[in-house]
């Protein structure tokens, strides 16, 4: 036979190149659009986004939504059940303060802690992970070993000690929680950076003399955005939960400021006689955590649809 009777991979290579070119073009054109379409098709995520928007708006406009100030004590209405005629839609607490407006003020604190602390963790985690992943070698080894050590620490206890020592300042909560939650983010970013660094287009950028900083910000950062956004969405509820945990122990925000954790803690003490005091803040907290988790899961499925 005149043809090669031996396997040849040149044709295979030609065909594979064509196939890859095809995939790349499709992926490059519409990765983000595809993700958005898939996300919009996820009912749980869409409903969650709507609910979260409503809660956020309620929190922002809280002072104008109720005729009652959040710290005003109504001596005639100590711990009354929800009462529409007086405008106490969620009832009042044991100090006679309106629970509706307090729950919304709690939402302000909880959401803000969630956002700010997550941003802090994002900044630390992304920087740390990107540097470790980009440098590689011994630096990377050392940096990740440090993360491993931190992983095995009972962080919560240090946060508690911090709160005890330096007082329960809200700024401290932001920093402390952010400083606790960056480890996983650093790992994710490092892994992604390492994977992307090996790709040809980074090598090409290197070869054509683009500076390291520029490579990191122009090429690597946009490519690790997906996993980072997903993990961020899942960190926010984590942080909110942790803040509530601290507040529940009496180590969170201070009076007259309040958060869902504080309200739940107060409600839990009197749940037999005044169940509404537990029910409303607990529902708000649970619904918010639900929503963030659903959105996080939805985003992950949308950006990485291999599971379907």
């Amino acid at each position, binding site marked *: *036979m*005149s*043809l*090669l*009777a*031996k*396997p*040849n*991979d*040149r*044709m*295979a290579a*030609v*065909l*594979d190149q*064509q*196939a890859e*070119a*095809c995939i790349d073009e*499709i992926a490059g054109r519409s990765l983000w659009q595809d993700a958005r379409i*898939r996300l919009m*098709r996820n009912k749980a995520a869409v409903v969650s986004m709507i609910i979260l928007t409503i809660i956020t708006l309620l929190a922002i406009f809280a002072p104008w939504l109720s005729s009652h100030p959040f710290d005003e004590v109504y001596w005639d209405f100590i711990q009354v059940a929800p009462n529409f005629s007086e405008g106490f839609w969620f009832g009042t607490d044991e100090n006679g303060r309106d629970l509706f407006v307090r729950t919304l003020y709690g939402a302000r604190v909880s959401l803000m802690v969630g956002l700010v602390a997550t941003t802090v963790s994002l900044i630390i985690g992304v920087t740390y992970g990107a540097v470790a992943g980009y440098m590689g070698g011994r630096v990377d080894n050392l940096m990740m070993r440090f993360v491993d050590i931190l992983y095995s620490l009972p962080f919560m206890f240090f946060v508690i000690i911090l709160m005890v020592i330096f007082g329960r300042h809200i700024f401290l909560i932001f920093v402390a929680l952010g400083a606790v939650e960056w480890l996983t983010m650093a790992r994710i970013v490092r892994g992604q950076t390492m994977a992307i660094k090996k790709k040809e287009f980074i090598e090409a950028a290197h070869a054509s003399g683009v500076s390291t900083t520029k490579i990191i910000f122009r090429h690597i950062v946009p490519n690790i955005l997906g996993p980072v956004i997903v993990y961020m969405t899942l960190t926010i509820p984590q942080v909110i939960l942790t803040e509530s945990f601290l507040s529940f122990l009496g180590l969170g925000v201070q009076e007259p400021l309040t958060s869902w954790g504080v309200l739940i803690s107060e409600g839990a003490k009197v749940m037999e006689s005044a169940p509404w005091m537990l029910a409303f803040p607990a529902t708000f907290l649970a619904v918010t955590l639900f929503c963030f988790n659903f959105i996080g899961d939805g985003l992950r499925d949308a950006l990485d649809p291999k599971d*379907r």
Partner: protein
Amino acid sequence: MSIILEVNNLNTRFDTPEGEVSAANNINFTLQKGQSLGVVGESGSGKTQIFMAIMGLLAKNGRTSGEAIFKGQNLLGLPVVELNKVRGVSLSMIFQDPMTSLNPYLKVSRQMTEVLIEHQGLDKESALERSIRMLELVGIPEARKRVHMYPHEFSGGMRQRVMIAIALLCEPDLLIADEPTTALDVTIQAQILELLHSLKEEMGMSIVMITHDLGVIAGMCDHVMVMYGGRVVETGTVHEIFNDARHPYTQGLLQSMPRIDGNHNEDLYAIPGQPPNLQALPSGCAFQPRCQYADAQCRSTQPEPAALSQHRMIACHHITVAKDLIPAMESA
């Protein structure tokens, strides 16, 4: 000669969020006992999915219609319990990537003996003996010792040999080999193909060789089935396909192979355009956007398969034209 596998009007579809995707349409072929069939096509041509469907290994969103009669029994739609009396017994399959196709958490001995224990009711000792003999047959040195190792302690080529040994444990009548050499080094590729070839002769089994590499087909197969865009575009004996290819796609595949006797200064021919996207196939003939003979008819209607002889089939509006034009194409 008796027919070992007869596939009639087989269709494979996948439900995706973007709608239904057809991976294989209206597939018909027969395979005689002891013969081997080469199935050629680019990735995404549906060649693998046909045999995944026959083996009952389609992904959960996949559905199949038609029939695949293996030794007188239609395998499609068979309950898993019944299918398991065939899979691994008289019908085996080996896969493309030996690195991931073996269970990394179980010793090779376990992965081999379990087949014999399950299907032939052997006890552990005799199953182990049979396994060791099979490993020796596929050319694993020190089989008695290595059978107790984990897959990661084997090289890629050795792992594919282990895969073959597992597939052959129950001496199947038909072995489906899905790109068995693609993931391996070139020298190892040749060894594995040689092994398959000699095992086929020795055990008198039939082989289906799924590949995108016509070179593999030339050395191994009696018949060839060329696929494009989820359809069979041409079938024939290996001789007919290599010497008298009629479909423009088959011709393109042949031309893009490097030739020993050809002019070495010539550039390697590449079929223009890109492999089809099964989710958005072009109208009419799937190959039409890349075909130099395409005309209005090609763009509007799907060519019906035309049988030239019992084994020879071509699906092209330009069968005669195409044959005449081969010299013209080569000079172009």
